[in-house]
C-alpha cells in the first residue's frame, strides 16, 4: 500500500505542478486585466505543437527554449492587436473574443498539423528511470518536469514580490489609473503580462507534450480544469493557484489510487443490492471512476462556502 501512496503523491505532484504553470498565467491575466482568457489552454497546445515541430529539426532542447518564446510573442500580439481593441467594447466582447480564439487555434492546429496524434518524444538523455521503488520506475523526465515547474514557481514568486517590475505589476492590478499617473506605461505592462502568461502556458505544453501526448484535443482536456483551479485558489492569487493546483493534482491521484466506493460503503453499512436494481450504476460507483470529476465537485463546494476562493481577496 505504501508504494501506491508514494507514487500517487509523486504523480499528483507532477500533474499539480503542470496545472500550476497554466493557472499562474491565467490568474495573473485575470486579476490584472479582468479578462477570463478562454484561449489560455489553446496556447498550451500551441506550445506543444511548436516544440514538436522544432524538435524534428533541432532537437528537444531548442524546442524547450524557443517554443515558449514564440507562444509568448503570439500572446503579446493577440493582446496588442486583438484584446486591446475589443477591450473598449466591454467584458462580454473580451469573453467572446477569447472564446472564438480558442476555436480558431484548435482549427488552425488541425489545419497545419492534422488531426493525428503527433510523435513528440522526450529527449533521449532523460530516457532513464530516475529511481526504482518497489519495482516501479519513476522516469527522469517526470523528475525534470517537477524541477522545471518548481523553478518557474520560485522565479515567478521572486519577480512578483521582490523586483521593481513585480511591484509595478502588483500595483497595476489594483490601481491601474494611479500607476498610469505615475508615468508607467500600463498598456505595455498588460501586454507583457499577457505575453508572459501565455509563454508559461506554452512552456507547460512543451514539457507535457511528450508525456500526455500531443493531439488536437489536449487543450480541451486541460482547459476546464485550469479555470477550476483559478476559482478555487482565489482569482488573482498566485499562492492560491499554487495550493489549488497541488490540491487538485493530489486529490485526483489519491482518488484513482484508492479502491473504495459505494460497494465498500454499503458493505460497511450491511446493505446489499441486486445487480438488477434500477440504481445499480449508483450502488457500484467507485472513487477511481469519478476521480476526474472530483475537481468540479470541489469547485461547487468552494463556491458555496468560500466564494472568494482559498486565498482570494477580491469582494465584488
Amino acid at each position, binding site marked *: 500500500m505504501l*508504494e*501506491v501512496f508514494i*507514487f*500517487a503523491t509523486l*504523480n*499528483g505532484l*507532477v*500533474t499539480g505542478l503542470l496545472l500550476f504553470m497554466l493557472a499562474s498565467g491565467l490568474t495573473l491575466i485575470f486579476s490584472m486585466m479582468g479578462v477570463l482568457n478562454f484561449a489560455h489552454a489553446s496556447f498550451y497546445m500551441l506550445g506543444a505543437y511548436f516544440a514538436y515541430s522544432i524538435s524534428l529539426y533541432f532537437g528537444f532542447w531548442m524546442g524547450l527554449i524557443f517554443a515558449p518564446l514564440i507562444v509568448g510573442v503570439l500572446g503579446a500580439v493577440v493582446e496588442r492587436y486583438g484584446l486591446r481593441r475589443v477591450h473598449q467594447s466591454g467584458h462580454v466582447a473580451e469573453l467572446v473574443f477569447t472564446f472564438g480564439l480558442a476555436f480558431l487555434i484548435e*482549427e488552425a492546429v*488541425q489545419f497545419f498539423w*492534422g*488531426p*493525428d*496524434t*503527433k*510523435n*513528440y518524444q522526450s529527449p533521449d538523455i532523460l530516457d532513464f*528511470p530516475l529511481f*526504482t521503488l*518497489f*519495482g*516501479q*520506475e519513476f*522516469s527522469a*523526465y*517526470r523528475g525534470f518536469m517537477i524541477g522545471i515547474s518548481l523553478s518557474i514557481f520560485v522565479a515567478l514568486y521572486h519577480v512578483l514580490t521582490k523586483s521593481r517590475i513585480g511591484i509595478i505589476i502588483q500595483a497595476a492590478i489594483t490601481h491601474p489609473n494611479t500607476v498610469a499617473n505615475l508615468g508607467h506605461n500600463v498598456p505595455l505592462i498588460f501586454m507583457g503580462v499577457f505575453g508572459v502568461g501565455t509563454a508559461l502556458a506554452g512552456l507547460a505544453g512543451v514539457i507535457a507534450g511528450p*508525456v*500526455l*501526448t500531443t*493531439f*488536437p*484535443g*489536449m487543450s*480541451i*482536456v*486541460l482547459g476546464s*480544469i485550469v479555470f477550476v483551479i483559478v476559482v478555487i485558489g482565489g482569482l488573482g492569487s498566485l499562492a492560491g493557484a499554487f495550493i489549488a493546483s497541488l490540491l487538485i493534482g493530489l486529490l*485526483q*491521484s489519491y482518488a*484513482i*489510487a484508492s479502491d473504495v466506493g459505494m460497494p465498500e460503503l454499503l458493505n460497511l453499512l450491511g446493505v446489499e443490492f441486486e445487480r438488477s436494481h434500477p440504481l445499480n450504476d449508483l450502488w457500484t460507483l467507485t472513487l*477511481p*471512476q469519478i*476521480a*476526474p*470529476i472530483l475537481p468540479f465537485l470541489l469547485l461547487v463546494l468552494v463556491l458555496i462556502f468560500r466564494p472568494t476562493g482559498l486565498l482570494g481577496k477580491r469582494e465584488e
Partner: protein
Amino acid sequence: MKKIRFPIFINSLLLILIASFGINSSAQEPVRIAFMDPLSGAFAAIGTSGLKQLQFAADYFYNSKGGILDGRMIEIVPLDNKQSPTETQIQFRRAVSEELRIIFQGNSSAVANTLNQTINRYNRRNPGQEVLQINYSAVDPILTEENCSFWHFRFDAHAAMKLNVLTDYIAKQESIKSMYIIGQDYSFGQAVSDISISLLAEKRPDIEIVGNEFHPIGQVKDFTPYVTKIVSSGADAVITGNFGADMVSLAKSIIDSGLDIPIYTFYAAYDGITATLGADGKNKIHLIHNETSNPIPTERRKDYMRAYKAANPNRDVTQPRLVNALQMIVQAMEQTQSTDPYDIALALEDMRFMTLSDEEIWMRGDDHQIFQSLHLSVQTDEEIEFDADNSGFGLFSFFHVPAEETIVETSCQMKRPRR
C-alpha cells in the same frame, strides 16, 4: 405583337430533346452515401481517416471505372457528428433533408446506439423513405442483440466475438496468471470488461482478475496514476477497449513505467498511435481485428493498399472493413438494380461475399452481423511489408481464427417491416 409559332415537328423535336435530356441527367445522378463520424474535435483523427478511405474506395473500385448501376457515380457526403449523440441527431435530420438514405457510421457505440434508435423511429414514421445504417466499427454487442434492427448492418466483429478469440489465445498462455482490465466508462468499455471477466472465468478459471477499472472517456489528462495501480497489482497482462487519445496515453504511461507486459487492445494502431509508441510498443501492443495487416494474403489487396498509399502518402488503410462494406452494398444495389434501402437490406441479408483477401464473408440474416476470420496481431518492425504511420513499425498477425469458429449465437428477435 407578333406571335412566334414553331412548326409542329420542331416543337415535338424540342420535347423529345428535353425528355431525353431529363432521362440522361437522372441516369447520371450520383448515388449519394453519407459518412457520419467525428471530423472535428478530439476524435477527428479516426473520423477523417475513415472518410478518406471510403472516398478512395468509391473512386478506386467504381467511379474510375464508369460508376455503378449503368453509369452512376458514388458520392460520399461527409457529416460531422463530433462523436456526440446530440450532434448525431442534428446531422441525421440534415441527412434526411438532403435525401441521403444510406449512412455509414462507426465511431463510438454510444453514438451508434443513438443513431440506431433515431433511424428506427424515423423509418417507422416515414414508410417508403427509410434510411439504412451501415455500422463499420461500433462493436457493442447490443446492436445485434437486444437492440437489433432490420435497418442496421454491422461489418465489424462485435466485442464478444473479438474477446472470444482473444481469450482463446490468452487461455493458451501459461505465463499469464493475472489480468488487469481498464476501459472507458461507457457502454462499450463496460461490455469489454463484463465479457472478458466471464470468458476468462470459463476458459482459465485460475487467472485472477487483479483490476477492473473504468475512467471517464476523453477526460483523463495523465494515466500514470492508473498505471501505478496496474504495476502494484502485479498483473501479467492488460486488456483495454480504449481508443483515440485515451489509448495512446494509457499505452505510453504503461511503457514509461517500465512495465513489460502484453497489452491486448482493439484500437491501438494507426493514425499516429503506432508512430508515437514506436519501438517502445514492440511485442507489447496487441490488436484483435479482422483482415490481417501483415502478411497480406492476396495481390489484389496489396495493389489496393499501394494505390491508397500512393494517393495518401501520410495515411494507411486502417479499416479494410469499410471497403468490404462498400463493396457488399454496391453488390446489393447491382443485384436489385435499386438504391432503395429496403431492397438493399433484403439483398444484404445472408449475402456471401468474396473480399479482396479472397475470403468468403457472411452477413447473417438473423441479426445483420458479419462473420469473417479474426486475427491477433502484435506491433513490430520485423516482417512488416505495410507499416503504419510510415514509422517502420506495423502489425504482424500471428494468431488466426477462421470465420466458422467466430460464430456466436444471437438473442436478436428482429422485427421485419412489411411492404
